[in-house]
Every structure is written in structure tokens, then in C-alpha cells.
């Protein structure tokens, strides 16, 4: 875990309120686990004060280049979107535990389900899985056509279904409607998106899986207990009754924590 000023090498709007940024620096070489995140200090000084968690979307180990995709929500992400190539951003990371892939074997199928800005971390995951020879069923949910991103990139890695709530692109409905249409079995699913979506995916899924949570964070490193979630009864055993999304997660085995 390092804190480093990363250099912005690209900044581009790729959908409605959605930006893609590339950053480079030494710490990028440690970012090899999909599902991990970085904690960004968007401005010097106090406005805003706290760091912002953003998932690692892709890493080019050779050029030490990190890609993130983010939606402008409030002050922090808005300021981030105003940064320019050759500005720097102070980055703490990589943080957290990512998506486990070791258990997947060549020829097996993985289901990836992402919603909105939950989609980006699945891209790096998809690349890792595809490189291992895993077949990918990918379902990406957005509100509307203007919100869609990464569709083409995912298509190079597996079978992609896009769903939109208004039907303006792909299947009309939610990611679970996409899941209902799936006709191939899968050994593991991986999902990231808003909490209601995660709940729905967990209910619909037909295998074991991994969910990536979004919690409000303070420290991002496990010290402040801002981001805890309760462990499900049947997962507690002797251990702690809670998990920290920032350091024990953000990825958990589906069912481990109550969402």
C-alpha cells in the first residue's frame, strides 16, 4: 500500500456523466487484483477533505497505466472530471480484497453482472478470467442508452447482454431479466453495482458467487470502522461478527455479509 501522486495521461467523457481516466505511476505495478480499489485525494486542502474510493477498471502492467471509470456525483468526482492530462492525483492503493479467480479452471464459465458504475471493476476481472481461458457470460445493466459504456470492450472477452431500464438499448429491464434469459450454466458469478441490484442478483443466481459492496468510507484501510457490514449468522462461527468493506472487502463471498 502506497500513497503516490499519479500522473493523468488521459481524461475522456465516455457516456452521460461518465468519465474514463488513465493514470500512471510506480504504485500501479502493485494493482494486480481485480476488484480492488484506490482511494483518491481529489484536491489539496479541505475542499473536499476526504478521499474517494474508485475501483480499478484496468491495468496495463507494461506501461504502468491504470484505468478508472467514474460517474460525476458530487463535489469530489466533479472536481476529478475537471482535471487535465499532466495534472496529478494523490492515490492511496491498491486497497481491499478483490475477486478471487484461482478456483476457476479453464473451460469453466463465469457470470459477470454489473450495474452502472459497478461495471468498471468487472472489466479487469473479465480480462484476467479470459486470459485463463474461462468462458464469460456478461450482463451489464444501465438506466438508458446514454449511460452505456464498455460494451464493445467486454464483447471482445465474452458473451455480452446489455439491459436498460427503458429498453433504449439491449434488453429492456434489469440485469436479473438478463440472468433469467441465460441458457448456459456457470460455475461462479461475480457482481458489482448498487445494493438493491446485488440483493436481486444474489437471489437469482444459480451458483456460488462474489459480490462487491459500496459502503461509505472514512479511512479506507480498516482503522475507523465506518464501512462495516454484519456477517450472516451462518458465517460467523468463532470469528468476528462484522467485516470491513474497505479491508476485508469490498468483495465478499455471496451470503457472507448481510446486504
Amino acid at each position: 500500500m502506497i500513497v503516490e501522486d499519479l500522473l493523468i495521461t488521459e481524461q475522456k467523457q465516455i457516456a452521460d456523466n461518465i468519465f474514463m481516466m488513465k493514470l500512471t505511476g510506480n504504485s500501479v505495478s502493485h494493482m494486480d487484483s481485480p476488484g480492488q480499489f484506490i482511494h483518491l485525494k481529489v484536491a489539496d486542502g479541505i475542499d473536499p477533505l476526504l478521499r474517494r474510493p474508485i475501483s480499478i477498471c484496468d491495468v496495463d502492467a507494461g506501461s504502468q497505466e491504470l484505468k478508472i471509470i467514474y460517474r460525476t456525483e458530487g463535489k469530489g468526482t466533479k472536481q476529478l472530471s475537471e482535471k487535465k492530462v499532466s495534472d496529478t492525483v494523490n492515490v492511496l492503493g491498491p486497497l481491499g480484497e478483490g475477486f478471487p479467480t484461482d478456483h476457476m479452471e479453464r473451460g469453466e464459465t463465469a457470470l459477470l453482472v454489473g450495474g452502472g458504475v459497478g461495471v468498471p471493476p468487472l472489466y479487469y476481472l473479465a480480462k484476467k478470467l479470459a486470459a485463463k481461458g474461462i468462458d464469460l457470460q456478461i450482463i451489464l445493466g444501465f438506466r438508458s442508452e446514454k449511460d452505456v459504456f464498455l460494451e464493445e470492450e467486454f464483447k471482445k472477452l465474452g458473451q455480452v447482454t446489455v439491459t436498460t431500464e427503458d429498453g433504449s438499448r439491449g434488453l429492456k429491464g434489469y440485469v436479473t431479466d438478463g440472468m433469467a434469459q441465460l441458457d448456459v450454466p456457470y460455475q461462479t458469478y461475480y457482481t458489482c453495482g448498487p445494493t438493491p441490484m446485488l440483493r436481486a442478483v444474489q437471489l437469482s443466481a444459480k451458483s456460488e458467487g462474489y459480490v462487491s459492496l459500496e459502503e461509505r468510507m472514512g479511512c479506507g484501510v480498516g482503522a475507523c470502522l465506518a464501512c462495516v457490514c454484519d456477517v450472516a449468522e451462518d458465517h460467523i462461527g468463532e470469528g468476528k461478527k462484522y467485516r470491513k468493506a474497505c479491508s476485508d472487502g469490498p468483495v465478499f463471498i455471496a451470503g457472507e455479509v448481510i446486504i
Partner: protein
Amino acid sequence: MKNLRVVLPGLSMKNPVMPASGCFGFGQEYGRFYDLNELGAITVKAVTTDERPGNPTPRVAEVDGGMLNAIGLQNPGLDHVTKHELPWLEKFDIPVIVNVAGNVMEDYIHVSKQLSSIKNVSAIELNISCPNVKVGGIQFGSDPEIAAELTRKVKAVSNVPVYVKLSPNVSDIVGMAKAVEQAGADGLSMINTLVGMKIDIKTGRPVIANKTGGLSGPAIKPVAIRMIHDVSQVVKIPIIGMGGIHCADDILEFLMAGASAVAIGTANFVDPFACPNLIKELSQRMDELGIEDINSIVGRSWRSCENVTSSWH
């Protein structure tokens, strides 16, 4: 010879900088970033008799110049802390201050008694000011008589010096300070968080599940400085100052206000290296400003120049 060393009851510190309770866990997380031996001391998260699950999430919210938190004193309880957390800290050669909380006086007394007999516990910090627990806590922090009684009882059982952490949410901070000093407190910690709230205008509801939370960060620094300035002039016991420290000049400001050492809270979240960086910066600033002994500036804002160096102040 420049001196950063500060000696307070129970605490022999190589520099006046320690992390603030609740912002540093039990040390392990930030121990992965740097050697905790660089710190002047360490203050760990509040400990209660039994394990506490804390409040529902969201527990934090950002506000202008600071943050709100309502962790709700989540901690693994006295037993676990004694067996697992404190032993881990034994390998470091720095004083350990344990923050103690509870619902009723007996809780505080029990936990303080147990903890104060553990060999690497250097001092107890009585958290009578946590705004995020419904029972106890805040009442102790706003009534000088109850605070004094609690202090007296804890002092009676404690084997180590007792610091009382004051709440800023009171009409008369000087009265509170005097009351606990008279009851035997060895030192004061000031300030805990101000009670605040943020409402999400989209939902119309408070952002924090607990509704109210404790305001920390730069926003509260002027309140902390004022309270330490006022209290340090009327008590003889030393003050550990905190509330919005983010740079070395902030540390100097706290010392000049009358604190003898400082604690760093929210700044750790902004920069995990905040404490060691501040210690380095502080040493540089002392050079630049020609401060030879860090103790020499304590209370400078209200002391006439001749009297500046003294035992605690």
C-alpha cells in the same frame, strides 16, 4: 539541542504527537504503513466491558471542512482487547493510552481497573464525551458533578494516570475541566467531536443512520483552540489537544493555546502517513521558527514571555 520530548503523567514521549482515539484502531492498520515507534504515543479505540456492534451504516458523512461519524463505540470488548490487541502493541516502545467508555459508572470502573493493570498500558483516557451512544456517554460529559464522581471512582481503582476526555458540547468547558481536575484527573484530552447532522436533500433524511454524528476535522479547530486556551489558564494538569490538526502549524497553534501534546484524528484518513509526516514537519518548523524546546511554547498565547517554560505548560 532541539527538544521534541514531552513528559506527561504516565507518558514519556519522544515527541508530542499521537493518533486520536477511534481514528487509529488498535494500531495494526497504520502499522502496515510505518513503524509505530515513530509516534510520541498511541491512543487506541474506545474499549467497553463487552463487545459492541456499533451503529448501523452509513456511519460517516463528509461536510465542509470536516466529517461526521457515528461509529457507536464498536469494539471487541475488554476481554478481546486484553488478549489480542494490547499484546500486539507490546513490541513497540511507545506509551499506550487506552480510551475507556461505558453506559454506567460501573462499566468505566471495571474496564479502567482491568486495563490499568496491564503492563503496556501507560494511561487511561476516560471517554465521557462520545456523542454517539444513547446511554451514558454524553450525560457524563455535560454534568460536572457526575464527571467528577466518575473521575474520582476511576482514579481510586486505576494503577495508571487518568486523562479525562472532555466534550465541547457544553456551556461551560472551564467548569467541567475544573471539576474533573479537583476529582483527581491527571490530565485532560480536548476536544471530542461537536454534535452535528447532515440531511440528504434527495431523501429528506439524515445521511447518517444514527441521525446525529460527531463533527471532526479542520471545521472544529477554532472551537478546540478556544477551549484549550480558556481551560489551560485555570487548571494545573496538562492537556492533550486535538480537533482538526492537519499540519505542523496546527500543532504549534494547539501548543501555544495551552496543550502539552496533541492527537491526530481525521487527518489519518486523509493521509495514512499523517502522524509521521507531521512529526517531521514539526521538527522542520521548529528550526525555521527558532523553537529549541517544544515545551517552551506551551501556553504562549496567554503567558507572558518569561513564564513560558514550566512543568506541564
